[in-house]
């Protein structure tokens, strides 16, 4: 028993230390590409930390979203940044050297002040955390008592989609808003589908159906074990990112209304269920006991599809050009410029 405790402590300390080191190297490394790759490794180790803290649901979400999709987004942005600023490279160099030369006493003073302030800040935070009681029950007993009324047996899914469904509803809205923001920053892109090599093509054909299957499994299993809409949606998004990277583009027919319909579906189903319940005399987002399980599965299925497509669209960055009204779009694009 003693040896086991010692071993687990050794593991935790190593994990915590590695996390800190990776975070430091991520932020301090000269090369941005190296920093991003280290950040992906950091995300994967965070997933391990979640497992150590008995949070397998978060570990799944972190591995798929935190490490995988965020890493893909960052790398794509870096690639665009470097191809965009090829000509202005000398300018950046000169600012860096100027900053090096200009490193005056004022800057050193500023750095010192920053370190002192942050030290005080850390001391305060550590004091607050250590002054918390060593053991609490929190809300775990309340959740366990009401779990039968939620329609699912996984407590995290019960909190996400029943007890605190309001959070999840607004979160889907945040996801959609982020996409709207990104779409409005750029004019729609031309549809440029390209063929990939044979090996990549074959691999995609094998992997994408598998990812869709895993996504469906995660969605179904979320009712009684770790899993759920967000994990399933992010696996679906991974399939989408893979397809986009191999040169596949959604057909012109689906790039217009069908795509927008799929994007808002998760939020729409959620709102419709909520409004119907209010009209039937219940409270907002209150599910009747006998239908709760079905409602949750319905909302989760719609949310999975929307989350998957939204995340893949976030990765793509621009809205695809619809086929029919391309002339009018071009006009508005020219006006913007």
């Amino acid at each position, binding site marked *: 028993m003693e040896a086991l405790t010692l071993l687990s402590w050794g593991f935790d300390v190593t994990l915590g230390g590695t996390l800190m080191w990776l975070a430091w190297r991520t932020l301090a490394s000269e090369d*941005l590409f190296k920093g991003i790759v280290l950040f992906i490794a950091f995300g994967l180790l965070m997933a391990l930390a979640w497992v150590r803290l008995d949070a397998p*649901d978060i570990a799944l979400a972190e591995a798929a979203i935190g490490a995988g999709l965020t890493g893909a987004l960052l790398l794509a942005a870096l690639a665009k*940044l470097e191809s965009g600023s090829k000509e202005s490279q000398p300018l950046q160099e000169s600012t860096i050297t100027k900053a090096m030369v200009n490193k005056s006493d004022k800057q050193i003073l500023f750095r010192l002040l920053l370190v002192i302030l942050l030290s005080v800040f850390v001391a305060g935070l550590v004091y607050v955390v250590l002054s918390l*009681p060593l053991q609490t029950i929190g809300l*775990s007993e309340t959740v366990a008592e009401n779990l039968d009324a939620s329609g699912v047996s996984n407590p995290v899914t019960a909190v996400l989609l029943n007890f605190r469904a309001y959070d999840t509803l607004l979160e889907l809205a945040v996801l959609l808003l*982020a996409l709207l923001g990104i779409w409005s920053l750029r004019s729609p892109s031309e549809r440029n589908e390209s063929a990939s090599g044979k090996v990549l093509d074959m691999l995609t054909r094998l992997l994408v159906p598998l990812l869709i299957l895993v996504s469906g499994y995660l969605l179904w299993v979320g009712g009684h074990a770790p899993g759920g809409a967000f994990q399933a949606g992010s696996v679906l998004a991974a399939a989408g990112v893979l397809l986009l990277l191999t040169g596949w583009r959604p057909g012109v027919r689906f790039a217009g209304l069908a795509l927008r319909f799929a994007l808002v579906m998760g939020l729409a189903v959620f709102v419709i269920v909520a409004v119907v319940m209010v009209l039937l005399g219940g409270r907002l987002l209150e599910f009747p006991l006998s239908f709760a399980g079905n409602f949750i599965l319905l909302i989760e299925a719609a949310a999975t599809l929307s989350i998957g497509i939204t995340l893949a669209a976030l990765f793509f960055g621009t809205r695809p050009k619809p086929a029919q009204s391309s002339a009018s779009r071009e006009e508005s694009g020219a006006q913007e410029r």
Partner: protein
Amino acid sequence: MNIAFFYALTGIGLFTLGLYALIKHKHLLRKILAINVMGSGVLLVLVALAARTQNTPDPVPHAMVITGIVVAISATALALALMLRLCETSGRAELPDEPME
């Protein structure tokens, strides 16, 4: 001192590291990375403190953290798009030192 507090302190460390990098670095992509590290630190504190129970950990913070992860990627994606737009218009992925006229 048990495992929950150890991870909570690690979370504080990550948050502070991220905050320092956020203030120190000029490049916007580094700032976005720093904000992500800060976010991971906050989530780690939340989940670590939820593990202070006798048996199963508190599921409410777990659900909030899953929500947090999705909100974090939304914010990161929007921030990256804004950075690329800024780089397109001004030619550099940094904010100007002096406030613009």
